[in-house]
C-alpha cells in the first residue's frame, strides 16, 4: 500500500499476474511473433534468473487473446507419450 499511495497507482507492483517485459525481452518477443507467422522452431536459453520464465508467462498471457492459442508443457523428465498427453490436455482434447 505504501508504494500505491506514494505513486498514486492502482495496480499492486511486483505481481506476476501481468508480466511486463524488459527491452531485451520485448525485442525477443517481436522476433518470436514474426517466426510464429511463418512457422518457427525457437530456442531460448539462459541461466537461472535471467527472465526466461517471465517471457514464458508473457507468451502464456497471449493465449487469452482471441488471435492466439498457446500450448504449454512445463513438467519435466517425461517420455514422449506423456508429453503428448500433456499437450492434448493443454489443447483441451
Amino acid at each position: 500500500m505504501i508504494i500505491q499511495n506514494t505513486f498514486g497507482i492502482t495496480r499492486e507492483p511486483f505481481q506476476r499476474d501481468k508480466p511486463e517485459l524488459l527491452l531485451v525481452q520485448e525485442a525477443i518477443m517481436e522476433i518470436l511473433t514474426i517466426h510464429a507467422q511463418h512457422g518457427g522452431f525457437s530456442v531460448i536459453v539462459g541461466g537461472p534468473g535471467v527472465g526466461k520464465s517471465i517471457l514464458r508467462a508473457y507468451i502464456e498471457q497471449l493465449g487469452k487473446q482471441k488471435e492466439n492459442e498457446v500450448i504449454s508443457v512445463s513438467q519435466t523428465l517425461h517420455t514422449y507419450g506423456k508429453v503428448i498427453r500433456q499437450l492434448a490436455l493443454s489443447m483441451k482434447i
Partner: protein
Amino acid sequence: MEKELIQTAYKHIRDQKTLYTLIDEAHLRDMNTLRKLRLLFDTFPPKHNLILFGQPKLLHHLAMQVNADLKSRITYSVNLLPLNDYDLEQFIQRELEIVKLGINTFDEGAIEVILLNTRVTYDCAVTCVMAAWSKRVGKLISCPIARTQKKNPDPKIRALIYGKG
C-alpha cells in the same frame, strides 16, 4: 492422440489463430523426445512457433553432431544474459521517469551499490521501494542507505516485495 493434436492445431489456424507451443526446461528432456516432438510439429500448420526454454547446456546438446538434424531446424535461438550495469542503470532511470521521480533520486554511490549485485529482479524491487520511501520522506537515497537495504532489507520493505508470506 497425435492425429487429434494435428487436427486441433489446424482448427485453430482455420479460426485465424497463431499457435505457440512452449516446452519448458527443455535441457532436462531426452533428445529423442525433442526429436519426435520436432517431427510432430513439422506436420502442424505453418502459422506456428515451437519454443523451447532451457538452460544454456541445451544449446551444447544441440551442437553435438548426433543432434545436427535438430539444430539445423532451429529458426531462431537466443541466449538471455543478465542485465549489465548500463542496462540496469537505464532500467532504473526509466522506472523513475515513469513514476515522475528525478534521475538523481539515487546518488552515484547508491547506484554503484545497486549495480554490485547480480540478483537483478530483487535489486530492482528494492530500488523501487527505496524510491517510494525517498519520495515520501523527501530525501535522496545515499550510498549507506542503499547498502544497508541491500544487505539487510527493512522487514516492511521485504514484506512489500515478497508479500506477507
